[in-house]
C-alpha cells in the first residue's frame, strides 16, 4: 500500500507530468484516508497560484517562443522560426497581449 513518503512523490510528480492510471488511483486512495497528505497536496498546488500572484501569468512554451521571436527576431534555440513572423515584433506583441488579456 502507498505510504505518505511515496504519496508526496506522486503529488509532486503530478505537477510535472501526467500520472499513469495506477499512480493516479493509488494517490487518490491515499489522499482519501490521510489528512496530512491532503494538506501537503494543497500546499504543493499553491505553486500555480504563487506564479500567478507574483507574476501576472506563467508563460507557456508557445507564448515564450512568441515573445522571444518578437524581441530577438530569431527562433528559440532548437526551434524553427515561423517564417515571415519573426520580423513582425509588434504583431506578435499584440497577439501575445491578446492571448494573455487578464
Amino acid at each position, binding site marked *: 500500500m502507498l505510504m505518505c513518503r511515496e504519496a*508526496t*512523490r506522486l503529488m*509532486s510528480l503530478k*505537477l510535472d507530468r501526467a500520472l499513469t492510471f495506477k499512480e493516479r488511483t493509488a494517490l487518490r486512495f491515499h489522499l482519501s484516508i490521510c489528512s496530512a497528505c491532503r494538506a501537503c497536496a494543497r500546499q504543493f498546488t499553491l505553486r500555480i497560484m504563487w506564479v*500567478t*500572484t507574483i507574476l501576472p*501569468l506563467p508563460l*507557456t512554451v508557445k507564448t515564450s517562443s512568441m515573445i522571444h521571436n518578437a524581441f530577438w527576431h530569431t527562433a528559440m534555440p532548437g526551434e524553427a522560426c515561423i517564417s515571415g513572423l519573426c520580423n513582425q515584433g509588434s504583431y506578435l506583441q499584440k497577439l501575445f*497581449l491578446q492571448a494573455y488579456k487578464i
Partner: protein
Amino acid sequence: MSRNQQRKGDTVTITASLAATHFSYMRPRLLAFARLQLRDSAAAEDAVQETGLTAFEKSTTFEGRSEFETWVFGILKFKILDQLRHQKKQGRWQPLDDDLDDDTLDRLFEANGHWQPNARPNDWGKPEHVLENQHFWQVFDACMLALPDNIARIFSLRELIGLSTEEICKETGVSETNCWVILHRARLRLRECLDNGWVR
C-alpha cells in the same frame, strides 16, 4: 479585495511616459523576483536593467497596468534565463551530485513511510488568504534562499519561470528523472520551511 481584482478594475492606458513611471514602481518587485532566482545582486540588477531597456525599446500602448506588467515580467524571465546561462557558461554552477543524496526524505518520514510526528503538514487555510498575506511572502523569500543553489535553480526554472522538466533538462543538463527527484525535495523543503516559519 484580491490583487487580481484590483488589477482588473484598473484600465488606465499605459503610454510610453507612463510606462517609465510604472516600471520604476515595479522595480523592487522585479529585483526581488530576479534575486530570488539568480542569488546574485549584481546579476539581478543587470537582468532588471536590461528588461527596462528592452521594454522601452519595444513598448507600445498597453490597456491597463496588468497588460504592461505581464509584458515586463515576460521579458524579465528571458533576461533571467540569459543570466543563468551566463553563470553556467562561466562554470559557476556546482555539480549536482551532492544535492542528490541529501537526507530530506529521511528527515521528514519514518522508516515505515509515515510522516515524522513533528513534520506532519498543518492546514494553511484558504489559498487566497495565504497568498494575500504579506508575511507569507517574506517567509517564502527566506525559505527560497535557504534552499541549496542547485535545488533552488531547478525549482525556479520550473515554478517561477514556468519551463517544463524537459526544457529544464536542456538548460541544465540534469536528467528528467533527477529533475523530478529534486523538485519533490524542493517542494517538501519549502513546504516544511513555510510551515515552521509562517504557520507555527
